[in-house]
């Protein structure tokens, strides 16, 4: 593994690269799903390969190969240099990288129970138990359950002499109950939509989720939604559940703080950002009670954005993003940090696999917990809608105008949770929304949620990101927007 990676670095150097880094990865995945009492998918995959990134003639090139031999590694290195020299035909200035120290280290992510050691039959038995509970409820027309395990072993070498080996395990699980009746399809998911909850941990995550215990409630809610009132429309207060707030953070904080978007690198696809450079340390992004960090360290938790070093060999960091409501930090790379005069990268470069270049991606972008308990927050609330579990999400290409829909809502009247509501939706403008936050629940209700399917880049890359969040209240929000005609 190391020998041909070193050979690739040497080939790149000989052919004119002034910088090079290599990632060799071995990615194993096991995916198991059930549907309406049957196993739907049982599959395993393994993908191994090497990618080399170079700067030559002052520009970037990248090439990859699945053939882990010195010959192919050298060929990929040579190709990367050829590509870099082609890039240089259009350069305006040489690529400049913020400095980093050489690192030699290895790291293993947290994992108490290796999910690949858990028999598939055990996983299937658990999922079919969940399935049985879901379909016991009249009105449930489709019960789906899935578990997803990944084992990622990566070796990083760079021309500054870094050598970093990182091994991590990721686990995800969840289910949904769908109910079709009349002219309506309703769905409830647990513990979250997008396939459930995901973290950088082992099977112990699944043991903690109480999948079977929550199934009856989820199924009953799916069936009951048909008879519920439509969520009303108007300007009103809302309380968002922790998982929904996690997605709100992802879309309206996590993405706009990616410095490559700010600088225009994603203009053709994922979009740009309203957080132009003069707003740093100036913009009142949110209410003063809001504090947000981008924290890849293990101390923050075992989120999908947890690691020891990013894919440029930069150590994991905790970067303040919003402090007392003020915007104070970006997610950056060595190149983007240098281009805006920052001394160091924030360590946010991550690649989907060995065949993709690293891009600035979210790590664990989390709101710090407040002080409320949810029951007290509801008791304090006169008139609001409590919304839970995301169903739809959309935001403009600079991250201002957003709209979300959730699976279920409840009306809160005079401090009490009253009628269940169907088809809740809300929308707004990012900074106006975050400035309307006036209460955040505390650590007991704070969870480090995992979003496994963030998309960015060309060619597109999917990345897992973490978002710590607790329920929170927002005032005077436009509700019911999606169904208003």
């Amino acid at each position, binding site marked *: *593994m190391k020998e041909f990676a070193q*050979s690739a670095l040497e080939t790149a150097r000989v052919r004119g690269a002034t910088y090079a880094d290599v990632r060799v990865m071995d990615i194993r995945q096991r995916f198991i799903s059930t549907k*309406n009492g049957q*196993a739907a*998918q*049982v*599959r*395993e995959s*393994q*993908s*191994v*390969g090497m*990618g080399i990134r170079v700067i030559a003639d002052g520009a*970037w090139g*990248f090439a990859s*190969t*699945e*053939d*882990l031999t*010195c010959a*192919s590694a*050298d*060929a*990929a290195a040579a190709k990367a240099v*050829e*590509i*870099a020299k*082609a890039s240089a*035909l*259009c350069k305006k200035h040489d690529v400049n990288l913020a400095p980093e120290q050489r690192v030699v280290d290895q790291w293993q992510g947290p994992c108490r129970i290796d999910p690949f050691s858990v028999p*598939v*039959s055990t996983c299937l038995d658990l999922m079919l138990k969940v399935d049985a509970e879901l379909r016991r409820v009249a009105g449930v*027309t489709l019960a789906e359950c899935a578990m997803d395990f990944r084992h990622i*072993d990566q070796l990083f070498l760079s021309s500054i002499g870094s050598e970093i080996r990182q091994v991590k395990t990721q686990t995800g699980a969840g289910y949904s109950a*769908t109910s079709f009746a009349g*002219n309506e*399809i309703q769905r409830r998911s647990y513990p979250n939509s997008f396939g459930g909850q995901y973290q950088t941990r082992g099977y112990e995550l699944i043991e903690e989720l109480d999948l079977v215990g929550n199934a009856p409630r989820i199924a009953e809610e799916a069936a009951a939604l048909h008879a519920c009132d439509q969520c009303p429309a108007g300007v009103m207060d809302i309380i968002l559940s922790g998982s929904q707030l996690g997605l709100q953070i992802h879309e309206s904080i996590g993405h706009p703080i990616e410095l490559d978007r700010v600088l225009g*690198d*994603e*203009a*053709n*696809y994922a979009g740009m950002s*309203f957080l132009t450079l003069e707003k740093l340390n100036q913009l009142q992004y949110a209410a003063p009670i809001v504090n947000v960090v981008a924290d890849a360290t293990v101390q923050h938790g075992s989120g999908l954005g947890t690691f020891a070093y990013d894919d440029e060999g930069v150590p994991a960091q905790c970067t303040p993003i919003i402090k007392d409501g003020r915007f104070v930090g970006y997610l950056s790379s060595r190149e983007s940090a240098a281009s805006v005069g920052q001394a160091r990268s924030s360590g946010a470069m991550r690649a989907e696999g060995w065949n*993709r270049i690293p891009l600035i991606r979210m790590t664990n972008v989390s709101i710090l917990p407040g002080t409320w308990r949810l029951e007290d927050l509801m008791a304090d609330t006169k008139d609001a809608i409590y919304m839970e579990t995301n169903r739809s*999400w*959309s935001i*403009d*290409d*600079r991250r*201002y*105008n957003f709209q979300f*829909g959730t699976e279920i809502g409840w009306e809160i009247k005079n401090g009490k949770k009253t009628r269940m509501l169907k*088809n809740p939706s809300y929308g707004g403008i990012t900074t106006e929304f975050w400035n309307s936050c006036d209460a955040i629940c505390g650590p007991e209700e704070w969870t480090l949620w995992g979003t496994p399917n963030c998309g960015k880049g*060309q*060619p597109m890359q999917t990345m897992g990101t973490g978002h710590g969040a607790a329920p929170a209240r927002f005032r005077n929000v*436009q509700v019911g*927007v*999606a*169904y*208003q005609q």
Partner: protein
Amino acid sequence: MVGAGLVPARRGHEGCPYSRDTRSMLNRKLADELFEKVLKYSTADETEAYIASTSYSLTRFANNTIHQNMAEEDLNLSVRAVVDHRTARATSNKLDEASIREMCEAAQALARLQRPDQELLRMPGPQTYRAVERCDPETAELSPRARAETVKQVIRRAEKDQLTAAGVFSSGKVAQALYNSRRLCAYHEESVSEFSVTMLADTGSGWAKKTGQRYQTLDPMSLADSAAAKALRSRDPKEIQPGRYTVILEPSAVMDLLGFMLLDFGGLAVLEQRSCLTGREKQKVFGGNIQIRDDGFHPSQSGAPFDGEGIPRHRVTLVENGVVENLVYARQTAHKMGKEPTGHGFQLPNEMGEAPLNIVMEGGRGTVEEMIRSTERGLLLTRLWYIREVDPYQKLLTGMTRDGTFFIENGEIQYGVKNLRFNQSLIEMLNHVEMMSAPQRAAGEESIEMVVPAMKVGEFNFSSTTKF
């Protein structure tokens, strides 16, 4: 753990001048050899092997410079085993003998862990496929330098108008082979290319994109001119009130919306009542001028002439005169529903069943210019963005306009407008189509390519605006 693989004698790092590594590219001979090895190690009742290779390069630019530039090669083998009415799959790109044996054993072991499915059909036998020629060697081999030279010209075009260009130019080749132990054998290779460009003015933007099997058909300079013109014309956008407007949707916008209905035309989706067409088969759901079919052999289409099990793709009329005439069916779904398979199934095992992937929507004789001239008050939309489904049965979609949104009054484009959010039922929209152009191959960002017209639609619902 990463395997060491074979380590041949080292050659000097200078090596010979870079020569393309052909190991990764699939051909029939390599596919045959790999399948023979699979058969050697598989003891399953039935065995299927899917082999795919990718050789792909993408040159990306932004801020009038090439900032990302990559190339990848990969070769994957995926083995599906059937053991006593149970099936599972194992996939890897490690293709040494030991790894192939491990893959076969893993697929069989996983299969044995499941409960038997008595409805699981035997694998299909040999099939006959219609020939499609979709591989252009020049496109497959286009060099980084050639792509960079084209991008340089596009950047010069941007700079001529003090614009900033961003986009991609990609090219490559994909190949796939599907074999099974009942002697089914299918093979397909295809070249791919894409050019997409966003032009940014200080307060305006424009976009254009094209894909195809031959890079020579992309015409990047025309795309650059189109995007530049929109960027310039959309400067200083005005804010308009949300509400219902007549809109003219360019083909990319139509395509990205229509993509949200693809899975709904699957038989299994209807059977499981998760489709917006559940209870609507054979009913007039759309306007009488809506004709949609799935046609993998249309000259502007892409993809293999077979599905995930190797069944030949059929042309299927999905919607005729607004009536939902047919769905598409994988073998298993067809068997459950008493229908004939149409060759649209996904690889087994899967939960979704099938979907049409080669949409062709009939159009009309209008042009976008005629649609504009005929519009008293409305909007011209270049593309739509971040489209998501709000309501699955109403097929209510939300999303934003982007990169070229213009207000039309009295038959003329008046000015650019700040982007708007829509909340619009696709079903309702297709009941308000007033005019259509001839269909063309369209490419967007939210769905797969389709052959669709531009269309003028009445009563399109915008719910809010944004700041740019």
